[in-house]
């Protein structure tokens, strides 16, 4: 009888421990997943910025004039999503499938400054588009230059 009680107790302890460990492991997986999701989100946004930039180039530089009316849509996306680029790179999102260099977190001031330059360049392009400016090339160039300036020091080579 006593043996049965002891056996039941050890089973209970084992179950509790397994559950406990399992729970801890689950929450770790969740934490890991959420960082992965952060990196995925960031990459998605960056790709979308790239896609909108490619669309802008096709119209502004290469003359796909049929889509001139869409220019503001593309530029506005870039304006909106560059408002706070550093927020896409929270602490702890510096591992896994990211091309971000440690400099993003080590030199946050410079990173914020270069991000701000990109935002300003996007705002200036959008206002030129909305103002009906026909010569958008130089402003588009400035936007591109700001992307490159940041990738120079803050993203792995590719």
């Amino acid at each position, binding site marked *: 009888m006593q043996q049965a009680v002891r056996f039941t107790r050890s089973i209970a302890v084992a179950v509790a421990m397994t559950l406990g460990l399992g729970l801890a492991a689950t929450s770790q997986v969740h934490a890991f997943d959420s960082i992965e999701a952060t990196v995925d989100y960031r990459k998605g946004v960056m790709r979308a910025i790239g*896609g*909108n930039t*490619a669309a802008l180039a096709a119209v502004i530089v290469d003359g796909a004039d049929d889509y001139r009316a869409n220019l503001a849509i593309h530029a506005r996306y870039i304006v909106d999503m560059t408002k706070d680029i550093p927020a896409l790179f929270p602490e702890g999102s510096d591992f896994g499938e990211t*091309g971000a260099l440690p400099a993003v977190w080590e030199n946050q001031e410079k990173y914020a400054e270069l991000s701000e330059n990109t935002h300003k360049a996007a705002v200036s392009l959008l206002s030129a588009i909305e103002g009906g400016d026909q010569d958008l090339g130089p402003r588009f*160039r400035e936007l591109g*230059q700001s*992307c490159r300036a940041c990738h120079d020091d803050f993203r792995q*080579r*590719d």
Partner: protein
Amino acid sequence: MGGAKRLTRRGPWWSAPVLLGLALCLPSAAQAEHPDDELIKRGEYALHAAGCISCHTKKEDNAPFLAGGRAIESPFGTFYGPNITPDKETGIGNWSANDLARALTEGRGPDGRHYYPALPYTSYTRMKREDIEAIWAYLQSIEPVRQENKPHELVWYARFRPGLRFWNVLHLRPGEFVPRESESDEWNRGAYLVNAMGHCAECHTPRTRTGGLDPNRLFAGQRLGDDGSIPNITPDRDTGIGRWSGRHIMRYLDMGMDPDGDFAGGTMAEVIEHGTSHLSSEDQRAMAVYLMSLAPIRHDLSVPTHR
């Protein structure tokens, strides 16, 4: 306004024509003082085309132009780009045009010592004498900066400079660029810009065990250990840039944007910033024409999409 009126009223009748005459003379007087302006301008263009700036200027805000100090990492240690301003003591102020030609085409200093191939003389050896002379004229025209050269920090077996003589036997094929008669002027201009000036192959080609360019995989990119890889720029559709049009290549050289709207980073961002973005669109087009004419080489570097 009032001042101008007073001056007109007070000045003698002949003052206007004389002043006008003087003003007309001034530009030609200035031209006579600097007969080499045109040459210097060509030299500045050639300096951009040859990509000299990023290795010879420190990578920091307001770094003195071309005064050296830039760290260049390599498997053999860290090289520091030297001062090439016309400062007589720390730069190249005591050099002649021939000294520069020797450095660029033979990899030797005025005192005869060997330079390391971190200076891409294996490519520059194809440079035309007229471009070297233009670069020389430009380098003499810039501000001399007194800044001592920083000694290279190399692994022990790379410190013995005379050993480079043997390296050169293996890897240096001296001689100016020879145009191919069967190809167009544009192709030849592109070949010259890519090979002699831009020295693209120096990074975009895997190296052999002795540190030379692998002749079978020219422009097919190289892996850099943990540091990622340098892309294959042959027109292979799967592993190179075979899906890029000439327009895409030109835009990349001009502003660093690839067909996906992504922008170059790292070393290539600097090559574009200080080099290819300064070239005329004709020259960018010539480079694209040449690159698109290369034989496609399949060389998978499995570059992940970095964001």
